């Protein structure tokens, strides 16, 4: 299951970040967003726009295509 499978307002556990683009993966890493942590899809913007997600107390925004590379497990 991937992050973009979640609906707005749903939570899951991150299994794997390794497919995410390097620059963004490094930023996640710097922010302490690591595997096995809870992730929450706060908002999906219309027309395939970016996602607003929350993990480890961080609120960030990434594109849909990046969200599709994050593997998660339903809680």
């Amino acid at each position: 299951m991937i992050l973009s499978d979640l609906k707005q307002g749903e939570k899951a556990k991150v299994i794997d970040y390794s497919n995410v683009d390097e620059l963004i993966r490094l930023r996640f890493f710097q922010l302490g967003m690591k595997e096995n942590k809870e992730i929450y899809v706060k908002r999906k913007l219309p027309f395939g726009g970016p996602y607003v997600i929350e993990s480890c107390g961080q609120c960030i925004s990434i594109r849909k295509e990046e969200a599709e590379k994050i593997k998660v497990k339903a809680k």
Partner: protein
Amino acid sequence: MNTSQIALLGNPNTGKTSLFNALTGSYAYVGNWSGVTVEKKIGEMRNKQGKLIDLPGIYTLSPLSQDESVVTNFLVNESFTEILNIVDASQLKRNLNLTVQLLELGRPITIGLNMMDVARQRGIHIDSNQLSKELKVPVIPIIARTGQGCERLNNCIASEEKEMIDPLRLDYGPILEETIKKMKDLIPECNGIPKRWMAIQYLEGNSEMMKQLESSDSELKIIAKEADRTLKEEKVAKSTQHHIADVRDKFIQNIIDASCEVKIHAKETLTDIVDRIVTNRFLGIPIFLGLMYLMFMLTFNWLGTPLSDGLDAFIGGPLTNWLTAGLEAVGASTFIKDLILKGIVAGVGGVLVFVPQIFILFFFISLLEDSGYMARVAVIMDKIMESIGLNGKAFIPLIIGFGCNVPGVMAARTVEQPKERLLTVMLTPFMSCSARLPVYALFAGAFFAEHQALIVLSMYVLGIVVALALAKFLSSTILKQEKSMFFVELPPYRMPQMRTLWRSTWEKGKGFVRKAGTYIFGGSVLIWLLAYTGPSGINVAMDDSFLAMIGGVIAPLLVPLGFGTWQAAASLLTGFLAKEVVVASMSIIYFVPEAQLQGFMAGQFTPLSAYAFMVFILLYVPCLATVAVIRKETNSKKWMTLSIVYGLVIAYILVFIIYQGGKILGFS
């Protein structure tokens, strides 16, 4: 003692600017870092005990964007006496990551534990004494926005001669410790910086450190690779970076367990509620456009224009009268009287009347920046920006460019991808900066009095449209890139503080006032002299002056655009110095006070040619200061030249179409 140099370091969005403002009176100066063109802000401490150096906000020392690379460079190469590390109490774990890296450096350090109030609201209770004991450095709880605790912090830093502290020494396990030992033998002596720290930074992948250690890079790389492989083989960690992070996490978790008490109550915060509205699927973009509209109406119609008119009445009336009386009283010659009244007062005064509008605009830009709404704008705009090969973050430099293109171009540094950054730099000059506003205000007031705000707004929109079209063109041709990327942190909203707002408005606006005293003053004197003198001597009729001759050479080129007079040509030439000089030039050339200038213009332009002239001003060339900053930021003469050339070409073609098309459609 007055020699303390305190480096202010911390994560982004932790209240660094608020703390800087609370601790310092004013910026002593703004300069550039040696080698890189990133703004260096230094402030004099209020208690005169030293200087505070403001560094860009970073999550860790390993840089991912241009502005972040300054920090490692600073720590290694610049001199400072101590570090002030601002830590967000509500995000302690993430913030302490940077703190650990700084503690490993072993310089004297004081921690300002900020946002104690926010942390408390979230149910986090921190025992700052315990935290201080665990970290073995002073920890002072503060609320930077209100200034609470800053007095104590002030007394703690720069109060006495600080000695070097023992660098924090975490045990990174046998494999890495062995690696670090080997690396230390290869690393050359460098400003007394602990070699262990340099080795760890290198292993973490800090690109700035790799650059620093270039001379022994090839050997270091082999050792680092070897360590990475061993860590993987022995299943210690996924990579060296992961391993270092794990060790630090454990250390930080122990500290947090010992000094924090967390009673989480998952309550919806105000930020969540506001976000639900402003990033709403349907309402997001309309709300943003509505806010922009409100900002323009306040700046140009409701608030700014009455203020500008008042100031203009004062300069044209009482001030001119006093000066005339004063000059007559001291028996000044006609030449001096003309120079001062017709040259300087007309030129500089014609521009100064727009100060209220410009400050109002800067105030709103500061408000957008301080409140945290800017990051949301990046999210809302990302989809549109993606379609032209950029990301939503690039929209922020463009909005800042509305105030002034120079900081806009510099703000492009926060865009991580080099190609997207270059593209953003090249687009910013099309953002209609506040210096162009006097020109619009003049023409819109004269020809479109009833639709002033709408006409001015159309300039801004046109600037954006041209920029987006050019972006699409460049990103699908010269700057064809594999991929555009988007990442932005959404900090909680904060109620903007009046003090911070005023300060950042002033910091931005004072450049405009300073320009009035330098470029515009000099430009005015020069233009007046050129208009006053001619081949046949001095005090010639304006039409026989040098200025008329120079303008006359270019004027024929401008005939197809609707404003082929030598006056318009000469004004445009001077506009390269700074766009508001165009108005100063016109005030001098037509020598009528600003209030009457508008009426006078009606004889020189038609509404259509006035609009054409405004569009030309919007697009034709970036001002001198912007061209210089483009040269610095892109580090390329080619891009600098291109920014001038394509500006001129686009302006000429577009204005030609507008004017000739307008004529065909029957406008005049």
